[in-house]
């Protein structure tokens, strides 16, 4: 475990050192970005709408019963910004993108494609890892922003159409506007950048250390998904403590 952590840290440092070559790899970064957006946008929208909707479904009637209907928008807004959008989008990205990254790099490792790159004096970190990390660090915050907006809309739709929750469109939006400001949104976006970095590095590292044939690739993908989810939840706690501290 500690060896893996050390290797991940070294890979992270090497990737950061390769950032200077990002403009050279612009085409690859754009390709990855397109792939990530294409693979995730629809699902992100669906997931976020229902997360917002379920929150409203559970909370709005309870709040109405306690006479605090005026904070429904605020609670849903804050929950989406601070926790649900960053964490749920990260889980989605781990499943759709992180696993694909590990499988692709793992297969390249197993079938000697990475060896071939090395013999051509092409750094696998510069060619394979850095473009993916840059792309995921751009894609995830964008998805999180999209998720926040769609989640708020999902909350609004369910709150307004749920007869046991006496919430109006104007009341929901006013509550949302008063409770959520740019600081909360940036908090969520900051978390998502850190999550993206950890997901990308774990996925690429697991791909690079893949051994064996197809079974080895399968094992790597499973490890990558499990470790990434654990890392996101752990980092979420640490970052939340830090943000609360400041």
């Amino acid at each position, binding site marked *: 475990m500690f060896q893996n952590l050390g290797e991940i840290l070294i890979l992270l440092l090497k990737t950061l050192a390769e950032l200077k070559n990002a403009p050279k790899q612009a085409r690859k970064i754009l390709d990855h970005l397109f792939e990530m957006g294409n693979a995730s946008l629809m699902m992100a929208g669906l997931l976020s709408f229902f997360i917002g909707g379920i929150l409203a479904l559970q909370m709005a009637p309870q709040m109405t019963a306690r006479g605090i209907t005026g904070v429904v928008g605020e609670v849903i807004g804050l929950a989406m910004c601070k926790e649900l959008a960053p964490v749920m989008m990260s889980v989605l990205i781990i499943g759709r993108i992180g696993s694909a990254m590990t499988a692709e790099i793992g*297969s390249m490792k197993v*079938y*000697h*494609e990475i*060896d*071939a790159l*090395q013999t*051509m*004096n092409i750094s696998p970190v510069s060619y394979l890892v850095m473009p993916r990390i840059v792309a995921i660090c751009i894609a995830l915050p964008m998805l999180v922003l999209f998720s926040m907006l769609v989640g708020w809309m999902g909350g609004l739709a369910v709150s307004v159409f749920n007869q046991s929750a006496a919430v109006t469109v104007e009341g929901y939006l006013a509550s949302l506007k008063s409770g959520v400001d740019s600081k909360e949104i940036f908090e969520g976006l900051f978390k998502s950048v850190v999550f993206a970095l950890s997901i990308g590095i774990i996925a690429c590292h697991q791909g690079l250390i893949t051994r064996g044939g197809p079974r080895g690739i399968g094992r790597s993908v499973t490890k990558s998904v499990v470790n990434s989810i654990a890392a996101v939840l752990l980092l979420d706690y640490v970052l939340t403590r830090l943000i609360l501290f400041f």
Partner: protein
Amino acid sequence: MNIDTSPNITSRNRPAKQQGVAISVRGLSKSFDGAPVLRGLSFEIAPGEIFVIMGPSGAGKTVLLNHLIGLLEPDHGEVRINGMSPTSRNLHDKIRMAMVFQNSGLLNSLSVEENVSLYLTEHRLKPWQQIRQIVREQLEHLNLSRADAAKYPFELSGGMKKRVAIARAIVMEPRVILYDEPTAELDPVMARTVVNEIRRARALLSQTSVLVTHDRELAFEIADRIAILLDGSLLKIGTPAEIKSYQSSERKEDAALRNFLTANYKNNETKSDYE
């Protein structure tokens, strides 16, 4: 055999003849999970030489090649390319080395043309139009059409993949080129094309070439010297004529070599026991 000298590297992009690169291996040993694969190998390869390594499957030939190009580090001993370690990044900045992998090692996400041009485009060595021209000429030289250039590796046969891998290595204009089973999966006509290409590249670039092969005929035809590797140890190094002479040797100490050569000969039609 006729050496095909028709230039696919045109006069405008023909590289200047360079000084050859010497390879030195001293006391090279390697084990995997405690099982020795290479046992104290020592030999020298002269600049511009075509050095062929023969041996049965599992003798450690590919592991040896991986050490020569720096993909593996020895447990004991050392490999030196013009005096430098192949694992040092410094070496690859100074001396271009290329390897043709046994399974081709083509990048599946890239087309044939992108695979062959990868080194030149990633290192931005030439303008794109010129790279494209070089790649097309090299592919044509290995009997691959423009339609093939647009294909992806998963659309190619094993033999085509091998030829693309050879094209990719040659367009790098390397000073050292390592071929792992270059004629495996090729029909005799294509094998001949590849042999011509290896010789032509050596003639143009003064390359030091190291080949690993099971193909006895190829080895005797193309090699300046042949090394026989058996169970991780060097059995013999010599010119093709010297090595051939051991098949009829009746000396007791030559028994292992004679057995290998005759088994290889005998089974050339019926596939070797060693394969």
